[in-house]
Each structure stands twice: as structure tokens, then as C-alpha cells.
């Protein structure tokens, strides 16, 4: 067991973890932030995507100990109080979610896509860069629309 310290959603947190503790376990089970989900065990589905030091990564394929000193943002950290992040608002406005399980990872990935590709990111780039996020409900149609709309407002 070792103590790991990091900043999650602006708050300094620390906890005792085993080396094998995954970042997603630290977030969900130690910190009680259950917005980040686990949808697979082969690093494919993207339900667990969070930002570590500003980059979208899969928290199921990251060791908590390796995030010592890191700045982590989860879906819970996006809104400012009750004011939604533009990408969250776009997902609602464009019906970019149904069951909601993949949604946190989708939104975190979407923000990363816009950060790197800009406000006018094309549909083709969005679709390609969402390859690491699986949704079973929406057929992606409205997710792509939401990402485009969210991008414009970011």
C-alpha cells in the first residue's frame, strides 16, 4: 500500500492504494465519484475516460500510483456549479444520450477532441476520433451532432 496524492476536479485528494489499483477504482471507489464508468475490461469502450493533466485517457488502463501529483478532471468536474459545460449542454440539447452509461466518457472525449481540433472540427474527424468510445444506444448520430454543437460553444 502506498499513499497517492492528486488533484481531482480542483480538490486535493489522497488515498492509500495498492500498486494494482486502477485510476478508475480510485475515482469510483475511493473518492465516490461514480460518474466515471467501467464498460469493459479490454480498454476499448471508453466509458472510463477522464482527463489527466488535460488529456483524455482511459482511467481503466492507468494505475492510480502513476497519477501521483496529477490533475484529474472527471465528468463531475465539468460544470461550474449549476452551469453546465457547453459540451454537457450540447449532449442534452441534441439528444446525444439515451441510457447515459457511455455519456461521461463520451463527453470527456468530446472535449478533448475539440481542444485539439478546434471549434470547427469536421464530422469526419469527430467520428474517427470517437473510435475509442462505444455507445450501444444512439447510433452515434446525435452524439456527433452534439459534439459539433458543443465545439461551437466551447
Amino acid at each position, binding site marked *: 500500500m502506498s499513499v497517492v496524492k492528486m488533484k481531482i476536479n480542483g480538490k486535493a485528494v489522497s488515498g492509500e492504494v495498492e500498486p494494482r489499483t486502477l485510476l478508475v477504482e480510485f475515482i469510483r471507489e475511493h473518492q465516490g465519484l461514480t460518474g466515471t464508468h467501467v464498460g469493459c475490461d479490454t480498454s*476499448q469502450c471508453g466509458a472510463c475516460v477522464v482527463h489527466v493533466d488535460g488529456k483524455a485517457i482511459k482511467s481503466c488502463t492507468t494505475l492510480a500510483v502513476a497519477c501521483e501529483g496529477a490533475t484529474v478532471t*472527471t465528468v463531475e468536474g465539468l460544470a461550474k456549479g449549476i452551469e453546465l459545460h457547453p459540451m454537457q449542454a450540447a449532449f*442534452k440539447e441534441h439528444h446525444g444520450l439515451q441510457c447515459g452509461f457511455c455519456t461521461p466518457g463520451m463527453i470527456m472525449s468530446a472535449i478533448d477532441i475539440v481542444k485539439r481540433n478546434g471549434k470547427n472540427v469536421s464530422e469526419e474527424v469527430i467520428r474517427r476520433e470517437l473510435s475509442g468510445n462505444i455507445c450501444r*444506444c444512439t447510433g*452515434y448520430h446525435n452524439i456527433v451532432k452534439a459534439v459539433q454543437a458543443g465545439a461551437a460553444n466551447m
Partner: protein
Amino acid sequence: MADTKTGVGASVRRKEDLRFITGKGNYTDDINLKDQTYAYFLRSPHAHATIKSINTAKAKKMPGVVGIFVGEDVANDKLGGLICGWGITSKDGSGMKAGPHPVLAQGKVRYVGDHVAVVIAETKEQARTAAQAIVVSYGVLPHVVDAAKAMKSKVQVHEVASDNRVFNWSLGNEEATNAAFKNAAHVTKLDIINNRLIPNAMEPRAAIGSYDTGTESYTLYTTSQNPHVARLVISAFHGLAPEHKLRVIAPDVGGGFGSKIFIYAEEVVCVWASKHIGGRPIKWTGDRSEAFLADAHGRDHVTKAELAMDASGKITGMRVHTIAALGAYLSTFSAAVPTYLYGTLMSGQYDIPNIYVEVDAVYTNTAPVDAYRGAGRPEATYVVERLVETAARELKQDPAEFRRRSFVKSFPHQTPVIMCYDAGDYGAALDKALEMSDYKNFAKRKAESAKNGKLRGVGFSAYIEACGIAPSAAVGSLGAGVGLWESAEVRVNPIGTVEILTGSHSHGQGHETTFAQLVVEKLGVDINSVSIVHGDTDKVQMGMGTYGSRSGAVGMHAISKALDKIEAKAKRVAAAVMESSVDDVEFKNGTFTVKGTDKKMAFGEVALQAYLGHKFNSSEIEIGLKETAFHDPANFVFPAGVHICEVEVDVDTGLTKIVDYTAVDDFGNLINPMIVEGQVQGGVAQGIGQALLEGAVYDEDSGQLLTGSFMDYNMPRAANMPSIENFRLGFTCTPCPTNPMGMKGCGEAGAIAAPPAVINAITNAIGVREIAMPATPLTVWTAMQANKKAAE
């Protein structure tokens, strides 16, 4: 007229979204109970084996282990086995051959992933580690995983079924159909495989079972589409506890697609075992690998199908024989899927005077097969639409016009396979789809594609489906173990806010919004004054849950009925308060008025008066404003539509791209078009998945599931779908006559319609008669190579 912005017909943004986009959803795995323990299921590594012995002695001494249970413990406790809730009678009158399905294997394992033991420990890792210390001695038996081989195999999956045949079921008039074929001028024949699919809702199944030693009652949190049915089965068949001592809660559920209808071993074991470890809660969260192995799969049909036509090209008969795999055990609704949800749809949108369907359902050493989005109807539609398309091509007729000529044109229409279609206009949907897809200029687009080295093809699918299976007496006569009605309770609070308690369950469908829209429409209240309560057997009266696109047509109908009762009661209160005759009270836009006077009361005021009881005689009018309704529909509802798919196939690699997709659907009146469109888009994605990407593969030699993770099982991704511009949705409307909303179901249409549209497009593009699903690049390239060779 109610509020047009939030009433029926408006694309209201979803009320449930806020919690999901902010990470505040409450899924089963998000819940943690005090003193919780963790379960790990030890699963069979073999497709078929006897269990000679299980030694748990070493594992029991491992750190953190709280308890280990095996089949013998379950048997000693007389915990009932898993059931199939639909009995099918064979053609020869014999009953279905149901083998035992204990929640933990007893004596034998029958598929890779079968539950052998459960380890309960303080942590997940401890449970898993201890499970590895359990020593199971297996006597490996030969296995059969291929549906087509099951009846001829020497392997016997269950003692009760010597040829592995669960039943041999038929529907329709065999003699008349044979005669039609005898007199046919042209017969089209196809061998069809409907590929096995793995549902893969994004939230893996999970359960938390607990036993309260103080109240002697159980609570089960579970990822269920129908918590009341789970309670009924666990009470009545597993015999765990009477219903009033068992609370089942299905909180936010991350998608179901059928796979979370069923009662599974894991949830039964968790709630049962809790008592045996002194009442501590037991949590199990399946991982994706377990979902692949042990969630009920879908489809897996091997079919021979024939279509007979007379000299004028009129369809005169259809004959279908299907072998349907049901896996190693009969899952909750499995027997209904390849029978009453399949054979009854064989008439499609067509006027076919003679139909005969025969189905052999078989056991295989694989995960159980049960309802998956569409459940039987996609399989039927695939048969019908592949046959019709192929027949049109053989007769050298335009596939659209051949369909049009063959459509049912007057309603009601009684098919030879039970169904009586109540309303529809199939030609209208076809016209609209042809127009929207610009079918007349297809040749131009094909030529354009050819310039880029791509083969372009177009495919049609004119589907019909039947949802809201009903009425209960009818389904009972066909073998259903339950009634298929729905319930609703409307609680109007004293200040006029409304709580709707429904037996339907939302796991992505948006009930919290659409159901509220109905309340807005009927009571004229603000949508924010309405909340929907579901998914908890302690809160909601008995209900049947959500599957088979039933929640709109059946669930909302029940709500509608209860709201009518509320209106009637409120009118009596209003009449008393306004000192008028109840016959003179009118209710419109949330206001009660008295005919011919300027007296009026808002809905909220009436609600308050109903609870105050100051202004009416409470011996004549009961205090309060709360009503319950159970609704049993008079008939199924029959959504139908035409989907047109255009593909481009890369000549060099066989890679198929959906370049254009048009879906025109008739769902009757739409409550929330935005949500309906979302259902179609998602359904089409699953249909495209089946046609191009997804297919469960069991290894013949080892019986192992080869497609056991997202690394090998190909889920549709964003780039597999047509572009926003080239994915067009349209609607036609023939209101359903059997419900007051005039609505039909919309949840499964896409998954039903898409596979034949895609495959018809590919076969059209590359000029072959048949191609197997999923039409992967390898499959398509191989077909093109064979075609080339044949032409040489």
C-alpha cells in the same frame, strides 16, 4: 390544446439527462451498502463436462473469504432453478423439453461460462483470488455448438431432449402451402443464417442482494428491465421469499436491448446467499468478459426459406423451416422468440395467402439465447425481405415495384399466421422512402461510385413488426406464463404536482420525458410538475416492465386510463366546489369551467380542494386525488416502414461503407419525435452492426467463445454509421386504432429493418445472390473472388 412546447408531439429535451451528463446517474454498481461483501462467480472453462467434485477447503481459508457456495448448497436449500416463462407445444402435441437450470451447476456444466461456484469475500480481488483456489474436477464431455448440427449430434445437452430438440413447432396450413408450391410458376429458395449476436448494453449486469435479519426480508438491486417480473419469479419459482418480503429495485439501468429482461443466476445467488452470510449485502458487478460469456445472446437461426409465385408474379405461398439455437438452457422468454415472435411475422407487409413455418428449437453448448432487440421479428423480417428481394431480381422486376404490387392494401388484414394487421399504408411509406432516397437517380450515383473504383448497391427492406404483445388472454393461450398488460398509478399532490408510478422501466428510452408529456397533454400541468417513478417494487404496484417496444403502446395507455380517472374524479370535486352539476364541468388546458358561467378553477386548485375536503361531502366523494389503472391492450400494434440502404463496396478489399440510409417509419402518432428518431438511429446502428460487423463465434473444436471481448467482437463505432447528411429519417402516420394516443412501438424497428436492407444492398452491389452476415471485408472480398472465378 395543451402546451405545444411540452405536450404530445413536441421534441421536449429529456428530463432525465441532467443527472447523466453531470455524472449523477445512479446505476447499480454506483450503489454501495454498509458492510457490503463482493461476489465472484467461478465459471466453467468447458463447453460440456460432468462435475466430478468440487473442493473448496483451501479457498475457504483464503484471506477475506466470507462464504463459498456451490450447486449442492443451492439444492440443499431447495432454491428453485431458473425458468423459461413461455411453454411451447410441439406439432405432435408434446410439451417443450425443458432441462433443469440450477443457479449454480449441479453435476454438469453445459457451456463455457456456466456458473459453478460463488465466492463471497471482503473485497473483489479477494473473492477472485480465492475462486482460483477452488479445485473442480471435470469429466470433459464432447460438445455441440453449431445449431445446424445439434439434432444430428451424438452429444446430448439435456437428458430430457434425446436429439437436443426442445420443441418442433409449426404455424400455418402445411397442406395448403404445399399445394401453392406445387402450382407455382416460380419458386425462390434461400438458405439463410441469422448470425448470433451478443447484446452488449454498455452497463454490464450487476446485482446487490441483502437480507435484513430484523424484518426477515430481502432487497435486490439489479440491472433489470422488469423488476416486478424478477420479484415474481424469484418469489414464486426460486421460492426465496414471498413477494412482500422481497423488494427488487432496478435503478438507472445502462441499456438493456432485451438482455436485462431475464432472470439470471447471479442476481438470484446474491440475494439468496446474503441470508447465508448473516445478512451482509453481497455485490456482484459483471465485467465485460462475463457479459460476453453469460448474458443471453440473440438470434442464431439456420433457415431454409421458399417463396412461391404464380405466372403473374403474385406471391402465393411461403414455406420456412428454421433451426433455432436456444443455447445450453432455456432462458426466461427464449421459447417465445423463434415461435410466436417469429412465425407470426412471416407475412411481412405482403398479402400471402399460404404460409407454413416450422421451427426446431435446439440445445447447444453455448450461452442461452433469448430476446435481443427485435426478438424474432428481425429474424422473420430478414427471411421475408431477403426472399422478396431475391424473387424480384429473379423475376427481373424492380424490387420496389415488386413489393408495392405484393403489399397488403386493405385493413384490417388477417394473415395466415395469427396476426391481424389493424392499420397501415405501406405504399405511402415506400413512396416517401423512394422520394427521400432519390431512388430514380441511383444509376447516376452508381456510375459516380464506379469511377472511384467502388461498387454501389441499393437494398430495400419493407418491414412490419408487432409490439405490445397482447391481449393477455391470447398470449396465455399461446403459452405465456404471464399476462402482458401494464399498470399505472397517478398521484396528484395537494398543490397539483403529479407523480406517475409506472410498471414500465426506462433504461434509455426517456420515459421520464415522454410519459410526462402525456400528463401535460391530458392535465395541462407544467412538465416540471410531473415526475415519473419506476423501477422499485416497493413504490410501484405490479408491472410487467419494458421490452418489445411495449412501454408506449401499453405502458402509456395505462397511464392515459389512470389520467382519465383523475380527470373524472377532479371534475366531481370541481363540480362540488363550483356548485354545479358534474355534467356541466368542462376540463381544458388545465382549467375546469362550468358551461354557461364564468366559473373556473385551475387543476391545482381542484387538487388542493380534493385533499382539503372542505367543500364537498366526503361520504359522496372520497378524499384525495389518486387513481390506478391496469391496461390490457386489445391487440398488438403494428409499426411498419420502408428502409433503403445504399452501400459502396471497395473492389480491392471488400470493405463496405453505408453511404446512404433512408428510414421511413409509420409509428402512428409520435409523442416525442426527437426521442423516436433517437430510437430509430440506435436501432439502425444495431441492425448495421448485425449486417456488417457483429457475430458471435464459438470454436467448433474447443467450444470456447472466440469473440469474447471488444477486441474480437466488432461493435459499431461512430465511423461505421452513415454521415449525418446521408442518414435520413422520415415518418408516415396511420394512427393505431387500439390506443387513444394512436401510437405504435418504435424501439426495435431499426434493428428489424436494417439487416436485410444492408445485405440486399451488398448483394446488389457485387452481383451475388447470397452473402452471410456479418458481411465483413473478408466475407465480401471472398464472395467477390468466387464470383470472379465463376465468371471466368
